């Protein structure tokens, strides 16, 4: 069984989903039952869930994200064309 400090240390080093199965089980059990660190570390785990989900969704966010402005695009194209020619 983990101590509160060990749970906090484990969560600060690693996403709990990446922990080996048994370690993850005991960590979740501790957080569920612990009156001292349960609420705090439960929120840390929730934040880890959120960030993991965000990264899984990131690839599909392009249409909703800000775009490069047209002027910058043209300048970049020009630069890439010249660099590609230099390399050839």
């Amino acid at each position, binding site marked *: 069984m983990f*101590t*509160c*400090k060990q*749970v*906090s*240390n484990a969560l*600060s*080093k690693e996403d709990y989903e990446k922990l080996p199965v048994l370690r993850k089980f005991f960590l979740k059990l501790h957080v569920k039952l612990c*009156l*001292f*660190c349960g*609420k*705090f*570390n439960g*929120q*840390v785990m*929730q*934040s880890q*869930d*959120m*960030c993991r*989900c*965000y*990264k899984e*969704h*990131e690839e*599909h*966010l*392009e249409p*909703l*994200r*800000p*775009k*490069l402005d047209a002027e*910058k*695009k043209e300048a*970049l*194209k020009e*630069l*890439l*064309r010249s*660099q*590609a020619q230099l*390399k050839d």
Partner: protein
Amino acid sequence: MSEENQEKVAIAPPETWVDRYGDYLYGFAMSRLRNAEAAQDCVQDTFLAGIKALDRFDGSRDIKFWLRGIMRNKIVDHIRKAVKEKKVDIDSEDEGLIESFWFKYSGIATTNPDPWQFNPRKHYDNGEFWIVFEKCIAEVKDPAREAFVLRVLEDQTTEEVCKVMGITPNYLWVLLHRAREQLKTLLEANWTGKDAK
């Protein structure tokens, strides 16, 4: 599958990269750097580094993801430079937290954090929620935001982030706690989607 049998992906010529991947990379950089000028510089540096290293691209995956890999390094470089310019100093409140009984005894900041005002899990399938999430990350104050981007979004190890930011692991823990705290408050204030409250 042997290496020879692996299907190679066609490489788009660099002249077409801006139209193909410009917006994708810019959106990605904006989600980490929050500053349009810095994000544009990052896209430019990524493309230039991509052209230089193109000979080393093995075609085993879409070049878009290869360029994004280069961009990850550029983002870390950018944050490293920004941190170097202003140097991260620990304030007295954060110092107090590290010295507190709860942190020393159990590695937590409080036994009773404020509960979420809505259940964010309900919105994980909604793209709009993640855009608000990105905007909220951009509003988190530095250096907590920088620590959060490096450690959580860019998956740098604790040792790497401490080295880049010149801070101790304990202070990194405090910064990540501050970032999570602010992100929660900002999401509660800014997410107005269905069943938000």
